[in-house]
């Protein structure tokens, strides 16, 4: 018998996939379809394509549909294993197959794929399932095109922010990205980064010292990528230039945050005059404007150690729950997090995400109307 969660759960990282890339064709012009027929999508699903992954092909072994298609490609199975099983109030879709669009050499093709993905997500996932909300994928090659794509799709009520990968050509605070931020700032919507893409295509190396050999090493570069993006946002003044945006960093860890911010706050005291527009300790900007997701949650040295980090990281504001379904390192809503005070758990399991993504409480009346 499935457990029934008594609490509201908003899952900030669900990977939905297509069964065939031809599901994108209704949203792509014939010109792009011809190239794909000839050469494929030219997207690697794991970011840095040569690394292994975990689990069964990167997924929970039990998440493959009975018809042999890809894990994450079947809405009824997603309902059974995740949305119904854990009584998820909302799930935020982060896709997978098209996520590396920003690594493609051709900016126009990249934008066309991002656009097709967004339409496919709306039609195949968001509209059939009101619990699912989507993030609009953007291709970063040409921020003006990305801004137009956001203007095209952000009005859909099921779209709750913009999505890109962690791997990048430049850190995300740089003015190159301003056209994207202007659209999001006007609408007060979040810029969401999901780990992946480091070292792919023209993106920078997965680590500052080059390419590692093994998947477990590549996973640890997530924190490095996120630290680089966050320092860029702080010292390029992005938080003041775009006061209505929150930045969300998915699946790159959380436990490093407090010590990273201590270092920044210490350095800032003596280096402040090099970036004089940063008028407050860096940690203050981050606590107000940056959010992180839980999965994959560390076990630490017992629950007390994690709760101490949650306190230092202001988890009551900054941390949001995620399962990463159907990936192999899925976190169970019931068992992944340590025991904690009820109010803190409520903030992490639902309320921080509800604020960032502006999600109304799904009341009994609303559920009956679905």
């Amino acid at each position, binding site marked *: 018998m499935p457990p029934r969660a008594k609490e509201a759960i908003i899952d900030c990282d669900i990977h939905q996939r297509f069964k065939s890339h031809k599901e994108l064709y209704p949203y792509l012009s014939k010109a792009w379809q011809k190239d794909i027929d000839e050469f494929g999508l030219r997207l690697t699903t794991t970011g840095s394509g040569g690394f292994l992954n975990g689990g*069964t092909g990167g997924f929970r072994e039990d998440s493959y549909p009975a018809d042999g298609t890809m894990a994450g490609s079947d809405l009824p199975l997603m309902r059974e294993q995740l949305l119904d099983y854990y009584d998820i109030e909302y799930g935020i879709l982060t896709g997978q197959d098209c996520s590396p669009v920003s690594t493609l050499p051709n900016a126009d093709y990249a934008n066309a794929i991002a656009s097709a993905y967004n339409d496919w997500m709306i039609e195949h996932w968001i509209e059939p399932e009101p619990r699912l909300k989507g993030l609009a994928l953007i291709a970063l090659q040409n921020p003006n095109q990305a801004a137009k794509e956001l203007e095209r799709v952000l009005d859909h009520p099921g779209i709750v922010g913009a999505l890109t990968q962690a791997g990048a050509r430049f850190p995300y605070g740089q003015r190159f990205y301003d056209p994207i931020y202007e659209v999001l700032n006007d609408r007060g919507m979040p810029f969401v980064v999901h780990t992946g893409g480091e070292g792919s295509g023209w993106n920078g190396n997965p680590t500052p010292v080059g390419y590692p050999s093994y998947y477990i090493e590549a996973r640890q570069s997530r924190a490095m990528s996120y630290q680089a993006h966050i320092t860029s946002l702080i010292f390029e003044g992005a938080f003041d230039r775009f006061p209505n945006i929150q930045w969300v960093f998915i699946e790159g860890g959380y436990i490093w945050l407090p010590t990273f911010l201590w270092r920044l706050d210490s350095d800032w005291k003596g280096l402040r005059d090099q970036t004089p527009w940063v008028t407050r300790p860096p940690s203050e900007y981050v606590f107000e404007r940056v959010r992180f997701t839980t999965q994959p949650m560390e076990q630490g040295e017992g629950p007390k150690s994690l709760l101490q980090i949650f306190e230092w990281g202001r988890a009551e504001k900054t941390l949001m729950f995620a399962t990463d379904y159907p990936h192999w*390192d899925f976190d169970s809503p019931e068992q992944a997090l340590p025991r904690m005070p009820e109010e803190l758990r409520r903030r992490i399991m639902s309320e921080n995400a509800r604020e960032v993504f502006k999600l109304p409480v799904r009341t009994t009346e609303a559920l009956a109307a679905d």
Partner: protein
Amino acid sequence: MEQATTERASTRTREKHFVALLRDLPPGSRKIVSIQGRSIGVFNIDGQFYALKNSCPHQGAPLCAGRIKGTRVATKPFEYVYARENEIIKCPWHGWEFEISTGRSIFNPHRVRVQTYDVTVEAQEEPDPSIEMYPVTVEEGVVMVHV
């Protein structure tokens, strides 16, 4: 966790529960049964029978639905040796590996383990009413788990 050995030694105080007819659990197959509210996986690995609690000690995933496999055994740097085929079960969620015969994890056999149960194959004394449609001979045997 540490009491598992003691519990295994005292199986004579446990009750036997029917799992399957021997012919219905051939080598390479498994059956997940529910006994007194506990989900238990019973395995026939090359003719040897084993039973494990169907719950990973990490996050409670259905461990016994995982892949039965070998593993890359501990080696010197840059040597890759795949061995122990069919001795290991890998959790279907996070990939934690356990030795099927002992329930001990590969990464920390002394501290992380899953409950095991004894399995016996016995001559069937009386026909089971639930299978009366099928004539059963004594020598076919039944697989019993001790819980």
